[in-house]
């Protein structure tokens, strides 16, 4: 029995909807992880001890435990304390914070490697440390970490399949559901893989665009 893609058109709408969820969740979580990563990096480097220490514990939880467990905690666990999030939102928060912690590690290193003359020049003009970070240091640090952050974002895309376990019909789960009806796992998993590949290409294209735009200004 060979491959038979003749059933694809009939179920394409389900797959495309799953694709839309995957893209939406990935983009939202990527944005959260990017800005969250900056905030986390600033906290880790500059916040007073009383904020920094509890924060490090939270960061450890996000780095040291499986993302799957974190999604369960956010979706099922928080209900117990009265926070009942929609599955999509829980998924975005889980993915976003998980990758924010990884991005934060990159951004911290980048902030520390910005030439200290930059901070000095900004302070000399009369900027406060916070203003200097915001206007001068962090923009440069972020430029330096666009390539590794982009890698994290591609990992985020792939891990977005995990939100299927809390019932979000993203691409992988949509494929599974179609397979449940058609008994055609190979075809539909391949189709899902093809869609992931296309999204991946699109993300790489965006990354190159950003890198080209900033290459002149470093």
């Amino acid at each position, binding site marked *: 029995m060979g491959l038979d893609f003749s059933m694809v058109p009939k179920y394409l709408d389900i797959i495309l909807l799953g694709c839309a969820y995957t893209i939406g969740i990935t983009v939202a979580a990527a944005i959260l992880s990017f800005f969250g990563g900056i905030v986390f990096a600033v906290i880790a480097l500059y916040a007073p001890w009383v904020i920094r220490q509890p924060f490090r514990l939270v960061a450890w939880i996000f780095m040291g435990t499986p993302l799957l467990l974190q999604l369960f905690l956010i979706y099922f666990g928080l209900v117990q304390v009265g926070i009942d999030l929609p599955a999509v939102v829980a998924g975005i928060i889980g993915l976003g914070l998980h990758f924010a912690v990884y991005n934060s590690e990159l951004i911290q290193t980048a902030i520390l490697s910005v030439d200290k003359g930059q901070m000095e*020049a900004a*302070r*000399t003009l*009369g900027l406060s440390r916070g203003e200097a970070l915001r206007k001068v240091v962090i923009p440069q640090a972020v430029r330096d970490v666009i390539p590794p952050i982009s890698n994290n974002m591609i990992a985020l895309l792939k891990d977005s399949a995990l939100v299927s376990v809390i019932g979000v019909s993203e691409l992988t789960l949509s494929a599974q559901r179609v397979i449940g009806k058609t008994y055609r796992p190979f075809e539909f998993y391949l189709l899902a893989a093809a869609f992931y590949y296309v999204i991946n290409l699109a993300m790489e294209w965006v990354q190159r665009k950003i890198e080209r735009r900033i290459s*002149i*200004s470093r």
Partner: protein
Amino acid sequence: MTDEKSFVEIRHAQKAFGKLEVLKDISLSVDKGQIVGIIGSSGSGKSTLLRAINDLDPLTGGEVWLDGVEVNQKLPHRQYEKHINQMRQQVGMVFQHFNLFPHMTARENVTMAPMLLKGLSKDEANTLAEEQLDNVGMLERIDYYPSQLSGGQKQRVAIARALAMKPKLMLFDEATSALDPELVEEVNQVMRKLAEQHMTMIIVTHEMDFAASVCDRVLFMDQGVVVEEGPPSMLFKNPTQPRTREFLRKHLENAK
């Protein structure tokens, strides 16, 4: 009990890193419009002294006054931060390695601080940037990024950036030391122009000829003390201290 203070007044400045004393009780006064040069070998403390004036390298003892206000006065941390940011707005500083913001164009380098700190509108800031960059001969490169500029051009933009805050005092920390020899003159020219406009300046430099031609007074520092000071005609031609003579002799030899 007269306590008349000069425009810039440094009193008993001391700076120590542990047991290492970088500045040993230095006092210096500079009048408004005066141009003071500081020379000395590296490690003599001249940069440290300059950086103490805007508290970039805080002193461990002594006072710095600018236009009647104590720069490094004792205040609670938050108040001090506010105070020092206010003071620094009045003191322009130019660094050896330019320290331009690489992610901003020349225009943005100049406009950022005035817009953020003085509330200038975008139009006002743009006019200011054009004015200041024209002043240093960099108007044609206004929308270039630092990476697209030569060292001399970068330094001229850095001077424009400092001047855009309308400082009362300009500090130059070896502004031409990192430049290729052929690019030194364009920066010196800008500094000469500033001198003609009677900007108060303190210039740390390795260039004796330049110091001799623009400075009203030159200080020779060695091992954390001012060994000798005087008008350049005296200090360069008839130094009284053996250490000054030795320094100038070595410097001449190296220049050959």
